[in-house]
């Protein structure tokens, strides 16, 4: 036993002293291997190896093998994990400003949303985790979230009245559904299919590809594309790992991330179209409600952020074209 301990320490010193030629960045995330974001990160790994001539590599562990999104962020902050992909939802617990993406109808259009992300606001948000040991490398598109219900189409906010809608277990998500007039029911994703089937909840909300892959369309026949929120994904790197790289390596990483982000936006667009077509063929009715009345309904929720960091950010978003 003592020998094993001693051996572990020798190995450790070998690792610290011997300047190794290659850096392996381990990335953990919760998506399956068919997801556009996973595919984009795989391309990024290939590109990085190409740019660095094999000196910087990424090793990706999908399916939450290394922990949930929140757990991976924690590990990343302390340098136990080099990289992770997360939705901005769990990031709210670490960086309060990220809550802006959970507030409905902050963005006027998809175009404005991307102008914000690719502009100064997006860049500021990428480095906003600086103090807490993490840094954003790029944004990935995760589309717009809309309501799907078993039988009631949501054409105007009043249609939500009395409906039990599943939300993620977060305060912003609960307030969002309440603001629109529904009654929010927090439920773990794994229990959602049975919950919908047996009437525990009347509906849920998600983007078209998730609606398709979760097979919730088998139970929910009305998909109302009210596009209330746009919650992007974010690729994070641990601050301590970032500082271990030399400027040239950092530049390669940035370039590979940027290229994968561009590739993913296109892949996501294609996937969204395919998913909508597929659910429609499976007998789902698609509805395109006028979002104006929804946006008016949430004005009090917007006002409630006045004087907060999120409120200040929302004001700047409004001024972005």
């Amino acid at each position, binding site marked *: 036993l003592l020998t094993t301990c001693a051996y572990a320490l020798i190995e450790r010193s070998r690792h610290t002293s011997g300047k190794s030629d290659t850096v392996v960045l381990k990335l953990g995330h919760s998506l399956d291997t068919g997801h556009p974001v996973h595919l984009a990160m795989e391309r990024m790994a290939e590109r990085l190896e190409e740019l660095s001539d094999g000196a910087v590599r990424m090793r990706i562990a999908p399916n939450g093998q290394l922990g949930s999104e*929140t757990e991976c962020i924690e590990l990343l902050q302390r340098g136990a994990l080099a990289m992770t992909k997360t939705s901005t939802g769990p990031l709210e617990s670490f960086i309060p400003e990220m809550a802006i993406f959970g507030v409905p109808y902050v963005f006027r259009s998809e175009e404005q949303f991307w102008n914000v992300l690719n502009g100064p606001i997006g860049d500021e948000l990428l480095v906003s985790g600086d103090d807490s040991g993490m840094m954003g490398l790029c944004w990935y598109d995760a589309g717009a979230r809309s309501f799907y219900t078993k039988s009631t189409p949501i054409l105007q906010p009043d249609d939500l009245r009395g409906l039990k809608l599943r939300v993620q277990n977060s*305060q912003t998500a609960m307030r969002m559904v309440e603001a629109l007039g529904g009654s929010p029911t927090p439920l773990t994703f794994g229990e959602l299919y049975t919950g919908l089937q047996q009437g525990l909840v009347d509906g849920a909300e998600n983007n078209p590809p998730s609606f398709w892959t979760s097979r919730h369309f088998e139970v929910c026949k009305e998909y109302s594309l009210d596009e209330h929120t746009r919650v992007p994904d974010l690729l994070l790197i641990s601050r301590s790992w970032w500082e271990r790289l030399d400027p040239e390596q950092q530049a390669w990483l940035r370039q590979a991330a940027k290229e994968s982000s561009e590739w993913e936006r296109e892949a996501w667009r294609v996937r969204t179209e395919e998913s909508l077509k597929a659910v429609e063929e499976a007998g789902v009715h698609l509805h395109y409600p006028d979002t104006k009345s929804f946006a008016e309904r949430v004005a009090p929720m917007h006002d409630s952020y006045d004087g907060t960091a999120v409120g200040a950010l929302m004001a700047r978003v409004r001024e972005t074209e």
Partner: protein
Amino acid sequence: MNKPTTPLFRLARVVERMLDAAAGSILAILVLIVAWGVFTRFALGAASWWTEESARLLLVWLTMLGAAAASARGENLGVDYFASRMHPDARRLIGLTVEMTVIAFAASVLVYGGLVLMVETLRSGQTTAAIGLRMGWVYAAVPISGLGMILFGVERIVRLLANVDPNDPEAVA
């Protein structure tokens, strides 16, 4: 035969009882919390926003405090097949090695690792999604559990050296 020191023995029993009482109370509270969650959904028609998360987080405390108390009684599952067929002297030596490993685990992972976990998480200001609690307070259970395990580990070593069965709390009196 020298008897184990009495103050250490008394302290260990008091701490064990406190940890047990805390873990048992948390279990009772958990039943009520989850039942309240069911009640609000059926009777009040609106799901409660705090029950699931608080129940999950209390589970960390239940485990950490309960596992420390269980270690006082040698209840943590192990494979004693091989050690039990050894000569009594060898068995005692193995017992001492095991207790020292438990102390090493408690000191490095639970006390040191747990303290870093707690302090760093408190410093980063991370909060839980639904109730907005500082996550560091959830992790505070880890170093507390580790301190308990170290205390019981030392006590069991003293008992082993005095040739008393470490799993029998009455054996000392």
